[in-house]
């Protein structure tokens, strides 16, 4: 006996075949994107991981993270191939009484990247403080106080447009205004303000969304109890919007840390021997300005310099992949943190 005919049974009609094949094509496309990205992560992760981590304790290549960049010298001594940083090389020559030796030098390839890490952290912290201060207050105005008017429309339009301006144009603007017009020269201050201006639209948009997520009843409840508008905002809106603002702003951090073009001519030096706090004495307030008005080394700029100004070979690969790995790891950790935190707060604050 034949089984009863099910009218909803799936048959391979031509429509179904077409659908399945299209489905597989776009599925393949999607996974290809993920694969391409994974290739980048793996290449930098594996080659850079070898530089930063090691198999013997303490498992992390501490000198690479805590020393200054140095020039690497490669030379042959008594038939052995030797690699040395600048300081070691001079010491070696002094001890062995060598005056003349054939050595190939590679800039930046020995030592570590400590000043770059410090510089990047300083740049990110300073610019985020400025951008958060301005951005959150703008968002308060836009979501709590503003009504539809000409000026508010103009402000919203300018925020949208600022978000699309290329980062190198911000760099030109910073060089024209802060570095030259205000005569701050290439300095932390100039970099802070340039980066803050660049990240401002991200912060404003994120904060506004966080404010909008706070239910209207919170504000109305406070006002009904006799609070003024500012009191209602301060006690009943800001505290609940703050987690949202902070998590979204972390994405802003990733952008600030990742951009190179705006700091090229406003804050970054290719090489600088002093660390930012050298030259500042706590007891002499007149030297405090030195801290603000000094250029720093920055990790993204360092990566640009080592990948374009020195040749690609086995000796330079260490610093190239090492710095790219450290930078990528930090930025990715920040981005991952923001995604995780966002999911956490989304689950926690439900109204």
């Amino acid at each position: 006996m034949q089984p009863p005919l099910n009218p909803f049974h799936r048959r391979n009609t031509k429509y179904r075949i077409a659908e399945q094949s299209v489905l597989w094509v776009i599925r393949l496309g999607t996974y290809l994107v993920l694969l391409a990205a994974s290739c980048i992560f793996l290449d930098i992760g594996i080659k850079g991981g070898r530089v930063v981590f090691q198999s013997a304790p303490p498992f992390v290549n501490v000198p690479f993270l805590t020393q200054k960049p140095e020039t690497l010298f490669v030379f042959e001594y008594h038939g052995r191939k030797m690699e040395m940083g600048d300081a070691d090389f001079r010491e070696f020559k002094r001890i062995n009484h060598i005056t003349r030796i054939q050595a190939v030098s590679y800039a930046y390839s020995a030592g570590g990247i400590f000043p770059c890490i410090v510089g990047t952290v300083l740049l990110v912290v300073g610019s985020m403080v400025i951008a958060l201060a301005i951005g959150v207050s703008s968002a308060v105005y836009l979501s709590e106080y503003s009504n539809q008017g000409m000026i508010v429309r103009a402000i919203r339009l300018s925020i949208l447009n600022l978000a699309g301006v290329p980062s190198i144009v911000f760099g030109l603007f910073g060089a024209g205004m802060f570095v030259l017009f205000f005569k701050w020269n290439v300095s932390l201050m100039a970099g802070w303000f340039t980066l803050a201006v660049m990240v401002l639209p991200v912060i404003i948009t994120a904060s506004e969304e966080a404010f909008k997520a706070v239910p209207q009843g919170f504000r109305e409840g406070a006002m009904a109890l006799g609070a003024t508008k500012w009191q209602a905002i301060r006690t009943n809106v800001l505290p609940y919007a703050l987690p949202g603002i902070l998590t979204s702003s972390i994405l802003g951090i990733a952008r600030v840390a990742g951009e190179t073009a705006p700091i090229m001519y406003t804050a970054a030096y290719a090489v600088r021997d002093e660390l930012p706090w050298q030259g500042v004495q706590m007891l002499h307030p007149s030297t405090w300005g030195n801290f603000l008005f000094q250029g720093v080394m920055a990790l993204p700029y360092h990566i640009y310099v080592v990948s374009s100004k020195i040749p690609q070979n086995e000796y330079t690969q260490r610093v190239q992949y090492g710095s790219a790995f450290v930078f990528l790891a930090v930025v990715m950790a920040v981005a991952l943190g923001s995604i995780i935190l966002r999911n956490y707060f989304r689950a926690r604050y439900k109204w």
Partner: protein
Amino acid sequence: MIETARDKQFLRPRGLRIDPLMRYYFGSNALLSLVVLILITVFLFREGFGFFPQNLRNLRLYRQAGLEYVDIVRARVDEHTGLSRYLQAIRQKEINRLLAEHVNPGQAVERLSDFDRFSGEFDKTANDLRSLLSDMTEMASAIKEKGGKAEESGAVSPDFKTELVPLLGSFPVYQKTSEKLCRDLEDLLARIPAQPVPGFEPSMEKFKKLATLYIAGFPAAEAKMKSWNPLLPVPWYRAVSSFLFGRDWITNSFWQDFFGVLPLLCGSVMIAVIALSIAVPFGVCSAVYVSEFASIHEQRLIKPYIEFISAIPSVVLGFFGVAMLGQTLRMITQISILSWVPGFPISERLNAFTAGVLLAIMAIPTIFTLSEDALNNVPRGFKEASYALGATRLQTMARIVIPSSLSGILSAVLLGFGRVIGETMVVLLCAGNRIAIPDFTQGIASIFQPVHTMTGIIAQELGEVPRGSIHWRALFMVGILLFFLSLIINYIAQHIVRKFKISIG
């Protein structure tokens, strides 16, 4: 409430209350972003706008000092050099062919000796013209220097007409030289040696044709020199048009600087087109997949992962291109099975295509996120109505969902374009940085040429030029162009979204 009382105590007497104060404080902060946009415009123009008068003076001096006159001769010499190079290219190819046929190098060179003698003689024919050109170059440079100095010190500019007399006096010499050159060339072309390697006759034929064309070009050049007039005024709009449509970006030259943005614009647009033609299919595909077909687990994996990609710093991508991708792509193109693809094998490791691939990876998250939003904004009823009529998922997708979210997808593509064209580090590191308009005659293979871009040139050259020089201002002008380009792209994207918004709930 206690606080309100305190506020009153402190501020009431002066007519101030904290509430309106806070309002003004927040309002002024919000106004800042408008101010910043205006400041950007102001400061870009402040540094850049002096470019036009300076460029006009630059162009005027170019004509008055006779540099333009000398450049007519220079074009002739350059063309001759180009022909010599063509001969060299033929020789190289023949040698390669011979070596591939296992002829030993000594013999190969011997077999090419006739050809070498010919190309040597060809090269020599232009010697007289070259020495004349270098004389003229010296004369014109001296006049230009005089004129430039007079301008700087504010003194009366020299009388260019009398200064130019010796330069223009070399015209009869030029006539004689060029006549001799033409005669020599015609002689030479009559006795082209037989090719040692069969199969190269066509290229020699082509060479002969090019050389005949070259000879035929002399009367036109002569007429141009005759009618050339140093006193012909350079109109003011040339300062703008030579920037926007100029085909040369030549700086720090001993001879004459040109600031034409066209090669840079071409490079930028070409890279953006390559990047988008990769990123749009992939970005839209994954958006469709995630929003319509993917299971909830896949969604949870794919969406954050693609967002994650957007956080990769551009300089790291650029570094990856320099260290890995460029080399890998070149190795792939050298596989002999793929040699039928136009442009393969590619000669330069860093070219427009390498940069385009990396920029595609940057643009995919932007396009993905915005298109997915657009797809999700399609009202449920649209889809349900379509299913109720018996349409399959594919039909619903292709005929209902995508058309109704097309405006959102289009604006996503535009914003991706804006992001790609404004990107600096990847193109600076991976585009090859050769300032020339790509040779589009090669068809699809032209995407493997190295190019330079607007963003790249600013990043590369701004650090090296003195402030206030014409070069510095030219770079700011490029910045202004970029700025307005981004504003226009943004405006169009917003306009599209607003105009085609679905209003049915």
